[in-house]
């Protein structure tokens, strides 16, 4: 009787765990942003999981600055699958602070970084883009590029260890062009995030745009209906995944007067 009970309870537990395994397989993996993972796999003596969510990767900036906006997705390119996830925050001066997380298709010891020249975007030929305050990070290690990153130039960055996950932070200035005639402060802002390539093909890029004055965003390089690539509400927009080579948006925004206009 006791043996029978043991067998039955063991079998029931085994079946329940098998069902849980099936359910776990059908549940989307949380991204690193949703829940920062501290380490790797649970496998003894084996190296850690290659699951992107399992790397100790930097997290996207908080979305608390996005008024009336749903949080950015927790998975997708740059987070749970190869590609880039970009968060661009527009300031009052028309500069864009960019945070970018790149998930490479395979571990690489170096990457090529190129920030495309946004002057090829329609209506933005006269902007004077500059890239400043560049920061690169792998795991918890800052990485210094061997030469300065500049708009339109490709730079090879040697990484301290083989990795799939690279984080970048930089500021783009001179990318805003005031519209005229237009209400005071109205401007178009060009944003073409860095293209980071390691070994293998780059994945798609998703761009999130935040800033109180952001009115909308379009992807002119997509052509046709594809130009309407971003969804959201005033202050916060998110594009659909874009091919890395064509990942560029034109942001329409109202730049607030300095010092709130009270000066």
């Amino acid at each position, binding site marked *: 009787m006791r*043996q029978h009970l043991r067998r039955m309870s063991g079998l029931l537990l*085994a079946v329940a765990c098998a069902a849980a395994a099936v359910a776990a397989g059908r549940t989307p*993996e949380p991204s690193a942003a949703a829940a920062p993972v501290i*380490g790797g796999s649970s496998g003894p003596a*084996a190296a850690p*999981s*290659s699951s992107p969510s399992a790397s100790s990767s930097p997290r996207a900036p908080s979305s608390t600055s996005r008024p009336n906006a749903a949080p950015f997705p927790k998975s997708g390119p740059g987070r749970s699958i190869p590609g880039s996830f970009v968060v661009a925050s527009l300031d009052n001066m028309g500069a864009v602070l960019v945070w970018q997380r790149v998930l490479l298709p395979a571990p690489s010891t170096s990457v090529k970084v190129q920030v495309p020249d946004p002057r090829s975007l329609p209506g933005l030929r006269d902007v004077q883009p500059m890239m400043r305050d560049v920061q690169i990070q792998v795991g918890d290690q800052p990485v210094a590029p061997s030469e300065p990153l500049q708009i339109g130039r490709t730079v090879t960055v040697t990484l301290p260890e*083989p990795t799939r996950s690279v984080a970048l932070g930089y500021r783009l200035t001179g990318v805003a062009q005031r519209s005229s005639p237009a209400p005071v402060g109205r401007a178009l802002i060009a944003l073409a995030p860095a293209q980071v390539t390691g070994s293998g093909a780059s994945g798609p890029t998703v761009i999130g745009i935040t800033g109180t004055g952001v009115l909308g965003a379009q992807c002119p390089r997509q052509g046709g209906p594809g130009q309407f690539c971003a969804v959201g509400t005033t202050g916060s927009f998110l594009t659909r995944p874009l091919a890395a080579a064509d990942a560029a948006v034109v942001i329409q925004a109202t730049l607030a007067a300095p010092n709130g206009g009270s000066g």
Partner: protein
Amino acid sequence: MIAGATAVAGDVTTSGFDTVLLGGVRVLGYLGFVLLVGTTFFLTWLWPEGRVLPTFRRLIALGAALTVIATLAIPLIGSGFAWSSYAGRDGVWSFARISLVALGIAFAPDISGTTRRHRLLITLWQLAMIETYVLSSDAWGGSLAAVKIVATTGHLAATAAWLGGLLALASVLIPSDGLDALHEVLPRFSIVAIVSVITLVVSGTLHALAVAGGVHALIDSRFGTSLIVKIVVFGAMLLLGNVGRQYAGQAARRSALEIDETAPPHSVQALGVAIGMEFSLAAGVLVATAVLVQFAPG
């Protein structure tokens, strides 16, 4: 520092306590795996008659408990206390592992009396247990996936056979219980240990190179540095194992492989202590492995 980079920098200051806790639970999980799979391997292939000793039942029970606890706790500590912590591939293999442990608990008493007859079944169960770790590790996917899967499977099997055997031997030698049987068991274990060490070296090298992406990439990384620490501890473990056996053999004025009930008690204990120390270093290897997984290329 720009805002985005502030967020980047801020994110990596993950709780140190969580990191230490996760590392500790990982080591317990490794120990559970060694106890569960290693001891069952020892009883299946090296000493089926030893199944009557209660020590082995306790080792297997402890191994099962540690395996289940670590398997459940690691995703929770690493990803937060929610169902989504078990989502995806890691969750699938975690629950599959617990399911296998439950099956083992359900039927172990039925087949423990006939381990010889059920060798194939038990070995398949052990292999399935190992694969739950392999398929949730970085061996799956990426380039050279087949090489990594085979290497990792061999690595885990060798780890379990060697360390599990060491623990099983120490548990018999230290209380000097059932030494007659060791006359036959020690030569068998000696062969298993040699094959395991060769397998560990070959599979570990292949795996590390495949994961890092080459020799230079391996050397120029923290993953490589922590791997060197693991190799140094592993080398010390091998040396101590050899010295311990020589010492015990000299104390008994006979080969360590000939130790039995007629050997002087101090030589038996010397061998037991040497094996115990060897396993202590093995625990060091497991800790080094827990550190290693923090730095593996992600």
